[in-house]
């Protein structure tokens, strides 16, 4: 096919752009990196008082970033629904016969 090169081209182009972007990343573990100075200090300092649980990871995951986690749960949910729809025997055609094991 004439367009067979397109996926490969897209993959290589994306890889090249990412490789260029890696050079711009802050040094690993840099305290002044933007990611450590945006909301992270607020979470780390506020967690003990706001949420009062010892595990900061849980307080960020379930409370500060509750919306994200709701989205993640919905992603898992959607994946299961998709798999069940495709493979779970819910879309059985007429005349395929009874097969309870497919579900």
């Amino acid at each position, binding site marked *: 096919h004439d367009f067979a090169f397109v996926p490969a081209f897209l993959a290589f182009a994306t890889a090249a752009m990412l490789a260029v972007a890696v050079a711009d990343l802050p040094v690993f573990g840099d305290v002044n990196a933007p990611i450590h100075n945006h909301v992270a200090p607020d979470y780390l300092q506020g967690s003990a008082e706001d949420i009062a649980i010892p*595990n900061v990871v849980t307080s960020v995951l379930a*409370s500060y970033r509750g919306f994200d986690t709701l989205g993640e749960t919905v992603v898992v*949910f959607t994946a299961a629904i998709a798999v069940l729809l495709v493979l779970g025997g819910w879309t059985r055609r007429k005349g395929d016969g009874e097969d309870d094991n497919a579900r």
Partner: protein
Amino acid sequence: MQDDVVIRVIAKVMIPAVMLFALYVQFHGDYGPGGGFQAGVIFAAAFVLNAMIFGLNRGRHVWPAGLNLLAICAGVLLYGLTGIASILLGANYLDYDVLGATPQSGQHIGILLVEFGVGLTVASVMVALFFTFAGRLTHIRLMAKMQVHEEADQRKAKRQSESKKKRARK
């Protein structure tokens, strides 16, 4: 694998321990490493192990497909409804401060509910995926068998019609 005594006995000992550990990871998530996602996968592993050792049909018997589908939806619903509850109590969506007497106890209750919802969904999704993919094997075998029978029937019908034609010519 149900014929292997060692595997069977070890599995019987391990499955309750795995489930108990999953519950620990689930409800100790506030204090140590853990939470709904990890606990859900560990809990599902117990059911997967059970199905691997004692067979798919017995595995399906202990965790039926209808109940599983219900659990998948119930987890997401529990999460969403926790958010709705905080709206009804006069705060923003998923702001747990209003769920308890103090903001801190409200956060505790909210996180516990939300993590339980995540754990429920993840565990039942993992079980559903395993049973669905493992169930394909019997389905594929059945389809292959049906195809073989179908082809044999077709060949037979062809032969019969040909011999009929021959007889008609005579």
